[in-house]
């Protein structure tokens, strides 16, 4: 656990007045407030840090303790006992902005010195929705192909969600009421889950369409025939026209990806043939190819 320099975080020096602290905090809060930086994890982290700094420095008791024991936070227990700090802390005077912080958002350093969550010394007793939580869920393409249930643990709470087939990479869904607890009796926030879907070695996806390269031996490409190819939904037999060129494309209707929340609807599978030239030819084969080239 590292010492956190709250003065440095707010860009002020140790002689800063309460007004200086308030001004520095407000300036940084405007810069990093999560409402102003949607989907920016760094901004949220920075905001939590400056909130923590303000929580300490805007409260004379906490500031005194921090100034006295900050770098030697391990010894702050003695101070804790002598001052019976916990009882007093419920009357904190520090204002703290909402919308991004909940219990458990403080650094280990803070919790070690001040015993956990903030005192909630907001200047206005208002009911606020709880904090919205953001989570990222990693799936592979096969997972995203079928509707399935998953159990998630978010901030210690287990949530069972149904993921509909066809979810997109980067798509975000909202689970209402599963965010942070409401403040002063306000409603709970929401949980936003953003899906990150890994590439598949055999298929590329664009929207509801899938794209795949299929190897075709020279003889089938020239003479035509029937091949069996893999789709995400099993194997499919496919007729190959004679004289199929390398790079030729074929569209298999409704063999692509399911359309999100539209049961029974699918995109298309686009096949591109890669004609493979035979290798390690026998002498006889070489003769035959020579004859062919001269015919």
């Amino acid at each position, binding site marked *: 656990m590292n010492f956190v320099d709250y003065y440095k975080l707010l860009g002020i020096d140790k002689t800063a007045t309460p007004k200086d602290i308030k001004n520095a905090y*407000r300036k940084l*809060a*405007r810069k990093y*407030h999560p*409402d*102003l930086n*949607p*989907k920016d994890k760094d901004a949220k982290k920075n905001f939590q840090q400056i909130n923590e700094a303000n929580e300490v420095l805007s409260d004379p008791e906490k500031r005194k303790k921090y100034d006295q024991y900050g770098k030697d936070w391990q010894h702050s227990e003695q101070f804790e006992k002598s001052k019976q700090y916990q009882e007093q802390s419920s009357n904190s005077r520090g204002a703290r*902005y*909402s*919308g991004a912080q909940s219990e458990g958002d403080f650094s280990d350093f803070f919790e070690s010195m001040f015993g956990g969550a903030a005192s909630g010394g907001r200047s*206005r*007793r*208002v*009911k*606020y*929705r709880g904090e919205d939580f953001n989570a990222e869920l990693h799936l592979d393409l096969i997972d995203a192909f079928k509707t399935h249930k998953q159990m998630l643990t978010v901030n210690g709470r287990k949530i069972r969600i149904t993921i509909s087939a066809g979810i*997109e*990479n*980067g*798509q975000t869904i909202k689970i209402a009421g599963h965010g942070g607890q409401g403040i002063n009796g*306000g409603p709970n926030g929401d949980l936003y889950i953003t899906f990150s879907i890994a*590439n*598949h*070695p055999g298929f*590329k*996806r*664009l*929207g509801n369409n899938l*794209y795949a390269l299929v190897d075709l031996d020279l003889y089938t490409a020239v003479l035509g025939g029937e091949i069996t190819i893999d789709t995400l939904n099993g194997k499919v037999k496919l007729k190959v026209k004679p004289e199929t060129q390398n790079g030729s494309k074929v569209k298999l209707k409704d063999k692509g990806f399911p359309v999100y929340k539209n049961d029974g609807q699918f995109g298309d599978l686009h096949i591109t043939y890669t004609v493979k030239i035979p290798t390690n030819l026998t002498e006889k084969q070489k003769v035959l190819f020579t004859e062919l080239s001269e015919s």
Partner: protein
Amino acid sequence: MQTEKLTAVDIFCANHNIEISFISSLQQTGLIEITTINETGFIDSNQLQQLEKIVRFYYELDINLEGIETITHLLQRVNSLQDEIIALRNRLRLYEINE
């Protein structure tokens, strides 16, 4: 008459300890819409999140209404650009070689 998804303006203001005139000024600037039923103003539930955000801008970050209007427009732009980035990244994956 559907009132299930509406929150009365006065109740919202009481819960958030804000002036009703503030909501009126937001309505005048077009930042939120108020539905009036039997002379009582209501806020649709799908606007609550946006409204709470505006309240935080105004009361906690000391941003005035003109600033909030500007920020709201810019945030809409940011959101649409972020959506566009996701769509473009997904398109780019078509051309990426699997490792």
